[in-house]
């Protein structure tokens, strides 16, 4: 089994939830996070603004140090990984920087607490 960790835009959350449940992947965990990508943030502006230079303060709003995002963590059996990734990419792709990233991590074991079952049977199957 694998963990699919996706970082997506906040306003895409409802669409993604819908698309995932349509694809038969119903269980996931989501949380709020903030982050930045490859864009370079100029820290000298922040430092200059702290010291009170007018030139730096006027440029403060132009760069965004950290952007709010949604963090989705989905644990799926091996055969569902590609379907999950395709669903997320298809729903979230606007073709612009900031659409997000998907990471695939190995998971060693999974348990269902209610019944103490173990393995792939505790996960979604489709």
């Amino acid at each position: 089994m694998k963990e699919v960790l996706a970082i997506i835009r906040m306003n895409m959350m409802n669409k993604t939830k819908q698309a995932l449940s349509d694809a038969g992947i119903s269980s996931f965990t989501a949380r709020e996070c903030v982050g930045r990508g490859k864009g370079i943030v100029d820290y000298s502006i922040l430092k200059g603004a702290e010291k009170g230079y007018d030139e730096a303060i006027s440029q403060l709003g132009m760069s965004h140090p950290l952007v709010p995002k949604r963090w989705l963590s989905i644990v799926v059996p091996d055969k569902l990984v590609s379907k999950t990734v395709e669903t997320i990419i298809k729903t979230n792709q606007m073709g612009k920087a900031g659409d997000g990233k998907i990471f695939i991590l190995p998971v060693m074991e999974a348990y269902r607490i209610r019944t103490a079952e173990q393995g792939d049977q505790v996960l979604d199957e489709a």
Partner: protein
Amino acid sequence: MVMIRAIIRPEKTDAVLEALMEAGFPAVTKTNVVGRGKQRGIKIGEVVYDELPKEMIFTVVKEQDKDYVIKTIMQAARTGDRGSYGDGKIFVSPVEEVYTISSGIKETTEKLEEVAL
């Protein structure tokens, strides 16, 4: 590829993010977490605080950059010369595949390829 998860003091977040930017690793994600460590929280008088606020920052880098990034985070997140309790932990875990949603490019340790939808 490896994922580096660092749990650090909230007041050190800006220093770590700035150090990472200067080191050439701009991409990070950050969330608020609470937790305790080996010292079982902090005891002040009679009261024990075992849910201490921390920040978790996580970044995914190539394997050859791992040591450099860890060193950068450690230098920036330490308090005092030799560090002190509560400075945090860094965890490293393997990542098998990375997808960029906007371009649909798939990255693995070996190669880059485009995903057909």
